[in-house]
């Protein structure tokens, strides 16, 4: 069992006469790294490789968790330890499905754990004018988090922005858009993108949520953080006495009457509204919604709409996206890929613990066996492209060296430059 060995602090020995199994973990987000961590503790003799598409590790901890929440990003210290002292191999810049076929991987490792997450923004399922400005929250947060991809939003969102959804990701969007640049001290926000996307704080941020305030999915602490920002005024029209729960209580106490004041951001929460269409008028984006309980449609004329309504798989034609055929007796799934786009970093730890327990059970019961070569079985394919952990640390050192004043690092957003730094050829 995974849990008890740590209380002895002496992991159980690998089965007599065998070296530990060889393990491939695909994806270095929290779920993949926790799996590697628990497996390494249970099977100190196993050879574990974590494959990652990017030259940089840690998935959404690096590119999702908001740049101004460095405390949360601190969990990567555990994982750094795995790769620097724990004997686990980081194979960055390798996309399984593209750089190495799934079948080849599965043939080379005794255990394969898929931890590739859910990279796409779920789209608003309503008729939509293609000229409308609609941006996914995941793409927006990746942009502000220095994600190395050219296809991310870069042009100003405008002074009236509408956010669909009221989960923690929606709250991240609201906070990041309404925070003064100076308030990002200590963060690793991408200042260039912040300046391009948001040359000035929006005057109006409308939040449209299907649920009522009692059903809001965000944590009260997240809402409190937004409310406490300088220059932010909160409105919550239609909040009823029947609305219960911490979100409703908070909004009731902090809502103020509408007033237009230059330089301030007015955040208005609209509950019980179901989006019906996104159209355009005079070059602006118009979201039409209807009250859940009927009545006239409500129109919001905005500069852009940000959807924060969940995450999905990447495009169907994306070879790096696990399909149904990425399966076998010795192949496991963990994290968002397996559970759907819900749950915090900590929930991935619990899930990883369960998955590792079933891997170990399967091995002890003989349902999976050791004997495949592991990394040696794929090394020839990948030799010239793998970014190892030391290589990544060169990139990281460069990011820390080039941090602007008041920032903890300046992420490198150009893949070629990352690779040049990784190989020491900069």
């Amino acid at each position, binding site marked *: 069992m995974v*849990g*008890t060995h*740590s*209380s*002895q*602090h002496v992991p159980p020995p690998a089965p007599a006469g065998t070296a530990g199994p060889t393990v491939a973990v695909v994806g270095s987000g*929290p779920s993949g790294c*926790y799996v590697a*961590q628990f497996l390494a503790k249970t099977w100190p003799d196993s050879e574990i490789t974590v494959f990652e598409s990017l030259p940089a590790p840690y998935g959404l901890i690096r590119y999702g968790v908001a740049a101004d929440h*460095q*405390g*949360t990003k*601190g*969990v990567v*210290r*555990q994982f750094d*330890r795995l790769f620097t002292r724990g004997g686990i191999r980081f194979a960055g810049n390798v996309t399984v499905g593209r750089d190495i076929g799934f079948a080849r991987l599965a043939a080379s490792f005794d255990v394969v754990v898929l931890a590739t997450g859910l990279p796409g923004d779920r789209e608003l399922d309503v008729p939509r004018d293609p000229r409308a400005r609609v941006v996914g929250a995941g793409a927006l947060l990746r942009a502000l988090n220095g994600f190395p991809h050219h296809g991310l939003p870069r042009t100003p969102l405008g002074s009236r922005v509408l956010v669909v959804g009221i989960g923690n990701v929606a709250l991240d969007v609201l906070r990041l858009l309404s925070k003064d640049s100076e308030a990002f001290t*200590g963060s690793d926000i991408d200042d260039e993108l912040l300046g391009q996307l948001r040359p000035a704080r929006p005057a109006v941020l409308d939040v449209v949520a299907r649920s009522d305030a009692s059903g809001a999915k965000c944590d*009260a*602490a997240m809402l*409190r*953080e937004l409310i406490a920002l300088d220059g932010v005024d909160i409105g919550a029209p239609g909040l009823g006495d029947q609305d219960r729960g*911490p979100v409703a209580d908070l909004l009731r106490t902090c809502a103020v009457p509408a007033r237009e004041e230059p330089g301030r951001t007015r955040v208005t929460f609209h509950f019980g509204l179901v989006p019906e269409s996104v159209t355009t008028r005079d070059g602006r984006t118009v979201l039409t919604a209807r009250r859940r309980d009927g009545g006239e449609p409500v129109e919001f004329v905005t500069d852009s709409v940000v959807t924060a309504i969940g995450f999905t798989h990447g495009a169907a034609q994306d070879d790096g996206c696990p399909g149904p055929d990425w399966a076998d007796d010795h192949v496991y799934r963990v994290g968002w890929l397996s559970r759907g786009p819900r749950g*915090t*970093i*900590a929930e991935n*730890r*619990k899930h990883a613990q369960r998955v590792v327990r079933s891997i170990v059970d399967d091995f002890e019961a003989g349902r999976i066996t050791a004997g495949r070569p592991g990394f040696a079985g794929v090394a020839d394919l990948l030799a010239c492209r793998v970014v190892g952990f030391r290589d990544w640390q060169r990139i990281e050192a460069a990011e820390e060296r080039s941090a602007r004043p008041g920032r*903890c690092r300046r992420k490198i957003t150009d893949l070629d430059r990352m690779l040049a730094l990784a190989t020491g050829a900069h």
Partner: protein
Amino acid sequence: MNELIVLFGTESGNAELVADDISAALQEKGTAVRVADMEDYAVDDLGEADMVVLVVSTYGEGDLPDTAAPFHDALVEAKPDLSGVRFAAFGLGDSTYETYNLGVATLRATFTALGATQIGETGYHDADSGLNPSDVAVAWVSTVLAVATPS
């Protein structure tokens, strides 16, 4: 001192790393140390250790992390006599929350109410500080142990 036990309660693993590093630092000084997850630890065994170091984070609205809550519930339920137990306490939290480090405060209060004696000051790590929790904890534990084992 015979054996010292470092008990951790965690949700995202930071407290486990801290517990491991406290243990390593103490072992270097020749102290026998065992690290255990509160999740797997029976409260009846608490009397066996000469000294317990509690390392725990805070979640939700000032709650104990998932792995520590059952341990705490068991203490409250079974009310073991801890009058022979000496303990030190280290909390991991984030000062952007109003309920900063309440988790360790809860656990400390329960230990004390059951008769245990706290050694030294409670240590704290603030995730918002940017400091490495292990550095803070290892520095803290050496001052606590100076109190525990006056030479």
